[in-house]
């Protein structure tokens, strides 16, 4: 890499994380025969891709030193709306459009609360979480919508050229997101805002429109994930996004994105999602009691945070 490419210093310790991934893979390959098989690796990629999709928009929000706690609820509502529309109209495209639109609308509302109304993101999006659940509980009234056309279901559970479809979605959004954050001035603005919002504002960056963009993207990715999850599960129910919030946050944190803002990458988040998935996959393959999962996840989050705290300072001082 040439010197200029090094200076948007966004994630210094990705090397260690990749080392962690390699170590996990090695350990699992030694411990179980089932791990190092193509189907299982594709399986891991599929699960990691889904986690990445939800966490990707959140990554950008956290880069601006914000937070979006509503993504899980948002995902659930989008899936339910999409499901209802597909059932009613028979049109998958229409359903997907409605699901995506619902995600975007929630994202926009978060953005309005955080930028124009100046509410703290933590509580604004937490309040949004409750409102979205309320709407969804009311709308679904305890029912499940299920059974979708096979073509649609392939979006979540199908393969193309032997590779799971969500992996393509992940790759596409990582590519687009990577280009956006790295090769557009908007992306650079977002990092500037996260690093020092006041300095960014006084440098003439239109803070509000950039933050609106980021929260809207987060909502849109939640909506998109909702559609993919719908396709994967072949069913939608009101509470389906609830268990997905904390893993998404954990993936972002494990990926090295700093909650103080200004530091973080989408590729880091993908590595974070991969580490999480590998761990859970390994625990399943080794048939370890699932009750251990929260503990293991907590330890990984702590390790990643510690890694950053201890390596970042040195990496920065070297630059």
């Amino acid at each position: 890499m040439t010197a200029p490419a090094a200076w948007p210093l966004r994630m210094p310790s990705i090397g260690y994380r990749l080392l962690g991934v390699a170590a996990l893979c090695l350990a699992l390959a030694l411990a179980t025969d089932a791990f190092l098989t193509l189907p299982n690796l594709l399986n891991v990629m599929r699960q990691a891709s889904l986690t990445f999709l939800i966490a990707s928009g959140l990554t950008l929000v956290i880069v601006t030193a914000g937070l979006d706690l509503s993504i899980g609820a948002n995902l659930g509502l989008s899936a339910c709306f999409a499901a209802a529309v597909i059932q009613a109209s028979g049109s998958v495209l229409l359903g997907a459009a409605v699901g995506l639109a619902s995600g975007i609308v929630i994202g926009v509302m978060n953005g309005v609360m955080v930028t124009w109304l100046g509410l703290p993101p933590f509580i604004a999006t937490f309040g949004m979480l409750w409102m979205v659940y309320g709407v969804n509980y009311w709308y679904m009234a305890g029912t499940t919508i299920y059974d979708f056309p096979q073509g649609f279901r392939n979006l979540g559970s199908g393969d193309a050229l032997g590779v799971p479809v969500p992996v393509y979605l992940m790759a596409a959004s990582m590519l687009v997101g990577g280009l956006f954050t790295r090769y557009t001035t908007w992306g650079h603005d977002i990092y500037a805002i996260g690093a020092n919002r006041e300095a960014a504002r006084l440098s003439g960056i239109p803070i509000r429109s950039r933050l609106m963009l980021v929260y809207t993207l987060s909502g849109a990715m939640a909506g998109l994930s909702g559609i993919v999850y719908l396709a994967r599960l072949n069913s939608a129910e009101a509470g389906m996004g609830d268990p997905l919030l904390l893993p998404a946050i954990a993936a972002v944190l494990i990926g090295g994105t700093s909650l103080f803002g200004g530091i973080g990458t989408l590729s880091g988040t993908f590595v974070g999602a991969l580490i999480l998935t590998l761990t859970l996959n390994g625990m399943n393959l080794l048939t370890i009691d699932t009750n251990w999962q929260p503990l293991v996840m907590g330890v990984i989050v702590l390790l990643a945070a510690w890694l950053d705290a201890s390596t970042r300072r040195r990496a920065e001082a070297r630059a």
Partner: protein
Amino acid sequence: MERAPIQEPPARAVPRVEMRGISKRFPGVRALDDVSLTVHAGEVHMLVGQNGAGKSTLIKVLCGAVHPDSGEFRIDGRPVRIESAADARRLGVAVIFQEFSLVPHLDIAQNIFLGREPGSRFPGVVDRRRMHAQARALLDALGMDLDTRLPAAELGVAQQQMVEIAKALSQNARILVMDEPTAALSDHEIDRLFARIRKLKQDGIAVIYISHRLREVFTIGDRVTVLRDGRHAATLESARTDMAGLVRLMVGREVRTHRRRFGESAGDIVLEVRDLEAENGVHGIGLHVRAGEIVGVAGLVGSGRTELARAIFGADRVLGGEVRLGGQRLPGGPAEAVARGMGLVPEDRKESGLALTRSVGDNLLVAALPRIFPNRWYRFGTAARIVADLIARLQVATPSPGRLAKFLSGGNQQKVVVGKWLGAGVHFYVFDEPTRGIDVAAKAEMFGLMETLVGDGAAVLMISSELPEVVALCDRAYVMRDRTIVGELDRRDLTEENILKLAMHHE
């Protein structure tokens, strides 16, 4: 290296404080280089020097906030180690810091006694009645009529400064350090403070007093130590020196006030402000700046100069009046101001000028992106070229463009803040305290840069507390008091005396 003359007073008792061979490096700066200082009981020892000479660092070393790389201390002749603020306190050192060290949501009494609250019968519980009574007594002694239950957040700068002083006095210290205590005070308050200091002298307290107001060396000081670029320049008896001598020692050469060659032809009006009123309190502002002009804004600390700058730039909400840039009315908001060619170099560069955790390169480009990459596509090659160019042009001392801004020295940070506007195609600059905390050489460069800018047809509005700078550099100056402009001085009338007369006017 020649050793500066140190005049010891006639052999008295052992000195109260002796600091010997103190050195301290910060990344990129040698803040203190083998500095020694001796202060006796009952003496007011003045410490003077230019910005960045190392005065504050020296006293931070004394009070345990900064650990020196080398050097030793003696107090009352006994060698001591000062590892922490607690150590310093135990040894009887009390400090009034230059940056306010008040806690916004604690009241005056709590701030005064922070960390030393008078206890009650119950362990850990503060005897608030006693605390407020003691605070009351301290404020009374300083002639301050403030409710001790007021939170610090509600105090003005001068009041905060007085609370700082009360806080230091409350420690019954044997060594009292004051870092520019009068910077924010009016004459009346200064008189009271001096009376108090004379009383402390009689009580046998050693006072170290840092000031930029050189006259105070003669009104209150017994001896004076001059620091220059982190080195000890001289220690003299106040009575045996004069203003010109001090300045020579401070600057290290014959008094060479920076004289700008004033161009005869000021161009068109670039900025025009009419009847401006803003949420932050500035009101009734009318001013204009022409191309090729450097226009000063002077006033005491707290007079609202920063607020004026922020209102013009649109950083704080404007309630009335108008700002015209190049004849066009600005709709308000920094984004619009920048888009139309206005740039602000804010006074608190670490808070609102720089992203300390980003690289020099990123900081230099942050405002320029829309201009450099109009189609929004970021090209690293172009960016690197422009950054390299800016670094060379401004002579920013940085090992690489990837260096984080927080590791640069103050002067270089300031250059980066200015540099971000150079790339952004700005033709009207507002500099708020551009030389605060930067060293002599960087200061000269900064002035040179400003001259170049106006030479190229840009216009500059410069806020500064350093009156000599204003006098030396500006074509004209506005003077502020109570958040409004109280007068305008053109080239002929622009003297420190005239500025102060307008700025301090007592009704």
